[in-house]
């Protein structure tokens, strides 16, 4: 907007007039940048609903016994919270929003390979989301199985499981199509001169993610179809009375759902890998190690699903094997953490909100990751299985990791996406409150988890009262922080000062083009550098 306004040909993608006008210019958009914003608005909507459900649970847990809702209602609330947050927020999250926006730009392309398919995948995302919401209001009552839909309960409960699983199936389709689109885009549309190892590391992370989306999602698809058939026709696959095996459902479910954790985490790691070099003005340490570790995580991540099932009934051999693989998959993640920290060494660090969010990410991710190892070893797992320790662990990974990476990404790229800048001071205040609230909310759950507080219970003995109280207070602090953050960002995007093309002195391609970008991203052929992180 600033340095190219003299160029008469430049029209920002936000102002561009295509075939469609008004709201239709968004619904019918094939521009990857507009689709990214569509995803962002829908995902933020579901995120806010998910947060409201979360805070309802925290209110319920404020005192022992019934506080604001009955046990049955609590089941439905955590189920919907899980379905919304997992299938509609964190799985599409980073790749559908920032992946869509920046993958083509990072590799010097004008769009993804299949723009219409991209639009289609947003449409079915919306259809799936509507189905998920419908499952809550239809007459059989909201599903109460938890987001994991474990058999045999999911095959026998009278609640609306079919609609909810069908929704997850449709949402999975959207995820597959996004992944397919990204793989083809990376193979076909890299600008001339950009080899795989010249790409920035965010596309690398998205590439690994896309393969997981592509290869794992069909498995949950067929599993959910089997579950639907089980309910509708009693096919018996998961019903011991008919010869089936409920454990089979758990296996099939986690064959997808464990890799799905990496669908959430890999793009988050990719975002952090972009932010750290920019704000340290330093070449990323160990480019190839970071790139290949993404693929390693994706590959090994397929083979660790059994660690969700140590107490479900598995042979000891299977358990130590899955345990070993779980420890192996932690190695590439640790490589990334070491490389991020080493990149900072002797860098000229510019402490701005995106960088602070990245630091918060690293801090929370280390806690989440190391407690993951506790859960990955069989002996400790058996002790804390299905306790709030697990809840704390995966919220540290998914919210502290993926969520804070999402916040980091939006603070990093908002000036590029909207051409406006937000208020740093307010953003920092939001960050500090978020960080404090988050830790107060989840850390006590590690402690009471070890002491035996089960997950998914709406009641607890009085001895857990202090920790639950701290946790609930943390929840309210976190919500305050989120409100400040969203307010700051929305205000910045609408009325902020115009942002320059390269506010952070970044070196990747998105910073070489105007903010916001034009419809075709590159009005002149981009100059491809051999090293995407070329800081002098």
């Amino acid at each position, binding site marked *: 907007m600033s340095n190219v306004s003299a160029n008469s*040909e430049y*029209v920002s993608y936000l102002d*561009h007039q*295509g*075939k469609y006008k008004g709201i239709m210019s968004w619904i019918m958009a*094939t*521009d990857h940048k507009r689709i990214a914003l569509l995803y962002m608005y829908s995902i933020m909507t579901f995120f806010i609903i998910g947060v409201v459900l979360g805070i309802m649970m925290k209110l319920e847990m404020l005192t022992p016994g019934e506080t604001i809702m009955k046990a049955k209602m609590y089941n439905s609330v955590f189920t919907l919270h899980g379905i919304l947050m997992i299938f509609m927020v964190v799985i599409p999250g980073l790749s559908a929003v920032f992946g869509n926006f920046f993958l083509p730009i990072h590799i010097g392309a*004008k*769009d993804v*390979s*299949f*723009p219409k*398919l991209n639009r289609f995948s947003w449409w079915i995302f919306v259809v799936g989301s509507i189905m998920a919401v419908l499952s809550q209001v239809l007459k059989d009552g909201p599903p109460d199985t938890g987001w994991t839909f474990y058999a045999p309960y999911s095959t026998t409960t009278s609640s609306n499981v079919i609609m909810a699983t069908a929704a997850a199936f449709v949402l999975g389709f959207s995820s*597959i199509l996004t992944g*397919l*689109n990204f*793989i*083809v885009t990376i*193979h*076909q*549309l890299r600008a001339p001169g950009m080899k795989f190892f010249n790409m920035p590391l965010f596309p690398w992370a998205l590439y690994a993610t896309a393969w997981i989306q*592509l*290869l*794992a*999602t*069909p*498995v949950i*698809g*067929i*599993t959910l*179809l*089997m579950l639907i*058939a089980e309910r*509708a*026709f*009693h*096919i*018996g*696959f998961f019903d011991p009375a*008919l*010869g*089936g*095996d409920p454990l*089979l459902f758990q296996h*099939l479910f986690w064959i997808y759902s464990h890799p799905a954790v990496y669908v959430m985490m890999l793009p988050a790691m990719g975002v952090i890998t972009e932010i750290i070099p920019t704000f340290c003005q330093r070449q990323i340490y160990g480019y190839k190690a970071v790139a290949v570790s993404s693929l390693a995580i994706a590959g090994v991540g397929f083979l660790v699903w059994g660690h969700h099932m140590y107490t479900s009934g598995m042979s000891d051999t299977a358990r130590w094997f899955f345990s070993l693989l779980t420890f192996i998959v932690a190695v590439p993640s640790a490589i990334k953490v070491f490389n991020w920290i080493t990149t900072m060494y002797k860098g000229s660090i510019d402490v701005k909100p995106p960088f602070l969010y990245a630091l918060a990410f690293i801090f929370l991710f280390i806690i989440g990751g190391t407690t993951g190892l506790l859960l990955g070893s069989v002996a400790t797992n058996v002790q804390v299985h299905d306790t709030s320790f697990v809840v704390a662990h995966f919220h540290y990974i998914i919210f502290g990791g993926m969520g804070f990476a999402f916040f980091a990404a939006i603070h990093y790229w908002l000036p590029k996406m909207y051409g406006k800048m937000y208020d740093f001071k307010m953003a920092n205040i939001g960050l500090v409150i978020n960080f404090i609230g988050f830790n107060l909310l989840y850390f006590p759950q590690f402690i009471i988890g070890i002491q035996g507080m089960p997950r998914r219970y709406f009641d607890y003995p009085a001895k857990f009262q202090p920790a639950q109280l701290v946790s609930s207070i943390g929840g309210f602090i976190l919500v305050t922080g989120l409100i400040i953050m969203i307010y700051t960002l929305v205000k910045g995007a609408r009325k902020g000062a115009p942002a320059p093309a390269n506010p952070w002195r970044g070196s990747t391609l998105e910073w070489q083009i105007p903010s916001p970008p*034009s*419809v*075709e991203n590159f*009005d002149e052929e981009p100059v491809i550098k051999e090293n995407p992180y070329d800081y002098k």
Partner: protein
Amino acid sequence: MSQHTAHIEEHRDDEASKLGMWLFIFTELLLFGGLFLVYSIFRMQYPVEFRECSLELSVTIGAINTVVLLFSSMTVAMSMTAIQKNDMKKALLYIGVTLFCAAIFLVNKYFEWSGKFHHGLYPGSELMTHLDRGHHLYFSLYFFMTGLHALHIIIGMTLLFVCYFKVRKNTIHSQDYVLLENSALYWHLVDLIWIFLFPLMYLIS
């Protein structure tokens, strides 16, 4: 690059389309892969019952359907060659034959299924719930797998129908036939899955 509006619509990359189709085929293989996994587990648990049940299926109809599908895979490949040689008449003929074979397959399937239904054997039926476990699981798998496969036949037929009309309208021609190529690829996949389903369901006695 001054025509901002037109560019994205005009972008054409056959390589990308084909790669996209191959990736989609991977997802289909994994979709069926889940079912083959379930099949292998239950067959390991109930080998005798699975064998007994497979005797209930008509190997003749199954074999006819296998030959029909293999033949249709050939004709769809021949339609590709015809398009490349710009021989529209032959291309239309071969797509037509492929569609005809697909229809024969479905008609056979219909008779097979309705025969079972006639005896009260269908998912969720009274009879099914009284079968013992291995038999129950076999027929559940049979209906689930062949049903899902039949659905894929219908999707493949829809694609080939679209191709048929596009060839007639001359929007698929010797310079631009990637849609037909992708539909043919998909058709081969449908054929391939059947090649595995047939022995696993019909020939294990």
